[in-house]
């Protein structure tokens, strides 16, 4: 995970998977979900019904040693002081969409820069599709919700580096 120039296929390297499992045990993580280009690896342990937020590791950035740990456990806002990140939270209960339609490109991707009025996602509530603006400036560190999955009021959707 520490080599940012690694090819896309490296995400499936057995040694890395072993290391990820070690990290999950070490930090008591229930789930790790990594995406690189069009490849994905998702590891789960313990309760299969785990429904906490999922973090995607940026493909281009050098990944930290324990990529899924902090955001998966961090409540929105509270962690800003400790890790200098901030979060875009869902303003309502609904279903989270990363793109305006299944055929469209996502509004934003990891490492994109967003401004206060950048649309980052849609939250649908009872067939009303609400575009959600970032309301802050910074760089997208990770996407914390799954496309097409339900989100709660106040749930963190994106992790943002305001200095990015």
């Amino acid at each position, binding site marked *: 995970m520490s080599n940012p120039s690694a090819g896309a296929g490296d995400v499936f390297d057995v040694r890395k998977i072993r290391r990820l499992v070690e990290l999950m045990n070490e930090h008591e993580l229930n789930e790790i979900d990594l995406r690189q280009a069009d490849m994905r690896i998702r590891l789960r342990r313990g309760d299969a*019904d785990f*429904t906490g937020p999922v973090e995607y590791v940026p493909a281009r950035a050098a990944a930290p040693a324990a990529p899924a740990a902090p955001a998966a456990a961090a409540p929105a806002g509270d962690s800003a002081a400790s890790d200098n990140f901030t979060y875009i939270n869902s*303003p*309502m*209960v*609904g*279903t989270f969409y990363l793109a305006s*339609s*299944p*055929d469209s490109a996502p509004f934003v991707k990891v490492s994109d820069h967003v*401004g*206060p*009025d950048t*649309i980052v996602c849609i939250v*649908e*509530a*009872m*067939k*009303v*599709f*609400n*575009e*959600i*603006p970032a*309301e802050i400036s910074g760089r997208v560190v990770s996407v914390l919700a*799954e496309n*097409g*999955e*339900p989100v709660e009021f106040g749930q963190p959707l994106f992790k943002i580096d305001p200095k990015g």
Partner: protein
Amino acid sequence: MQPVEFLDVARLRAVDWLREVEHHGELASTNDRAIARLRHGDLVAPALIVTDAQTAGRGRGSNRWWSSGGGLTFTLVVSADGDGAPGGHRLEPRSWPRLALSAATAVAAVLETRVPRHSFGVRWPNDVFTEDRKISGILVEAPVISAPNGTDPPSTGPAAKHLVIGIGLNVNNSVAQAPEDVRARATSMLDLTGAPHDLTGVLIDLIEQVHGRLGRLACDDETLSAEWQALCLLRGRTVTLDTGRRQIRGTCLGIQPDGGLAIDAAGQTERYYGGVLSEVV
């Protein structure tokens, strides 16, 4: 004189509270067109965008609204804060989740009047059905439009200033001409009555009914929520709701005053605000 099967734009423009009527022979999506006009900054609400044929109407996810000549596919654009428009209504964001439901009750009201001897109901949260066949679908969007030069940045919460209400209704487009899968699960006003309907008259009735309900929604009129509770098609039926994360199977207890759907599953009643609902037959 236009045959009744065709839209008479002059009659539409005579609706006194509409500030703009835009008519197309063919359009990919009236909602997309409305949002593009809003982003361009030259659409004045309340506005109506209507097309004779829609080629890429959107539904939930990858669903598409089937549309051919003779049907109504249109978008009503209203300002969320009323904007001093004639009869404009200030619609607080907390009321937005009930917009599609309110529009569905408006469609049902028009159908009850124009298609007697048939009963219509709402399949939560936005489809209108009769006799297990869909006749109308609704999709509402709340787009965020950036102010020029970065002024007036969005405040907290949903930042949309306009609400884009897209409605498809099968009027004179007989499903006899539709693909087989559509024929089995859809119907039109023509199919139900055996005679063509005044397309423009139906459209004017519809936008008036929707407009009236927006006013009632804005003031939390309890008679509006009573309408959707009475129109709930699946109350008392066994249903499954797929929320994307889990499937809930239970007895539908009906659409609640806040627009949520109550389901009793193994003695536990919960209220839901999203997901794909289906009936267990």
